[in-house]
């Protein structure tokens, strides 16, 4: 399992629907449309792997595969970085 952290060049702003992430390097804006996802993204660096972060954010286990896909996509677009 990969481990993630918020990319150092990304700013995260909480919004009522979740959060907005902005990458100061590639200047891309990403909508994060769910509070649990935002919690995972914010706390990812505190856990040894992605599942630890999912558990800590209270994501029900049957949804983990879907979240892993979303997180991998966020890593691809450099909102997250692998560590």
């Amino acid at each position: 399992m990969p481990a993630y952290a918020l990319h150092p060049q990304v700013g995260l702003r909480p919004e009522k629907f979740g959060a907005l992430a902005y990458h100061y390097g590639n200047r891309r804006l990403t909508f994060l449309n769910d509070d649990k996802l935002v919690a995972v993204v914010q706390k990812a660096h505190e856990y040894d792997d992605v599942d630890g972060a999912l558990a800590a954010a209270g994501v029900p286990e049957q949804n983990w595969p879907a979240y892993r896909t979303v997180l991998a996509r966020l890593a691809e677009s450099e909102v997250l970085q692998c560590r």
Partner: protein
Amino acid sequence: MQVTDRLSHGLEAPICLTWELTYGCNLACVHCLSSSGRRDPRELTTEELFGVVDELEAMQVFYVNIGGGEPTLRPDFWDLLDYSVEHHVGVKFSTNGSRITTAAAKRLASTDYVDVQISVDGADATTNDAIRGNGSFDVATTAMGHLADAGFKDFKISVVVTRNNVEQLDDFAALAASYQAQLRLTRLRPSGRGADVWDELHVTAEQQRTLYRWLLDHPDTLTGDSFFHLSALGEPLPGLNLCGAGRVVCLIDPVGDVYACPFVLHDQFKAGSVRDAGGFTKVWRESPLFTELREPGSAGACASCGSYDACQGGCMAAKFFTGIPLDGPDPECVHGHGEAALVAASAGRPPASPGHTRSGPVPVSIGRRPA
């Protein structure tokens, strides 16, 4: 959840905030959206500018689009740039290029947090200078050369698409590529002095179709979501595809007044001022105008149109300054409903205001040629 529903609850801060620093300009482009020319004595002081940046930092505004007028004419422009970057507010600024010297280009290339956008309105001097003034194409391309030489990759070349330059889209793309820059195309709106030239310069229905296909073929072209009314032609263009005025977008003008969007400098769309108690934050989050703009709009005359989901009735500014009711069709409606609406509205156009346009002859020399 639909984007519009999300936005109806209001964002904590705008995504696309334009901040015009001065009405002063050394050019006098015929389509200037802010009717710039002379500085306004009431423009924000340096201290007030810094105060606004502090607020933007607290609101976590990621970046501002700085413009004018010609923003670099303000003596405190470079200080403001440094101050914003230090306070984590990224800056994208628009310029005619006249102050982008070799030294300035090096300085700009040294940080990720600043992006530069050079305006041209023709892919050659003849086409460009007819809109922006004699010598302005040379000045702009000289600035582009300085940025490229300094290693500034992906700066923007920004073009307002008109009847006269729409045939040059490939040339603009080639121009951008030759400087390793990115092309940005935006829509001509009848705002500011643009109202005086819109009838002659806005693209024809046929040209709109060509433009739409070109945009689909060149998805890397930036547009600031300006052409979403063209999404009614079929496949939607990339972007949010809605009028973001007061919801995603807003403008702080040089005297600190806050408007719903840079293209609606009119009292009807003024939400407040950064000088009011509570500052910009309160205007953005609580002003009655913005609250109203965030409500789902009525489809009005467009209700029976099968393309309403794609086009949402188009651009509020384009309607307002051509006298079309705000729930009417866009004057450039791709299904041709704009023409009749324009005829019906011709008496209702808001009177043109000279704004800060300089009187007397348009200057042909635009300051020192950059070294």
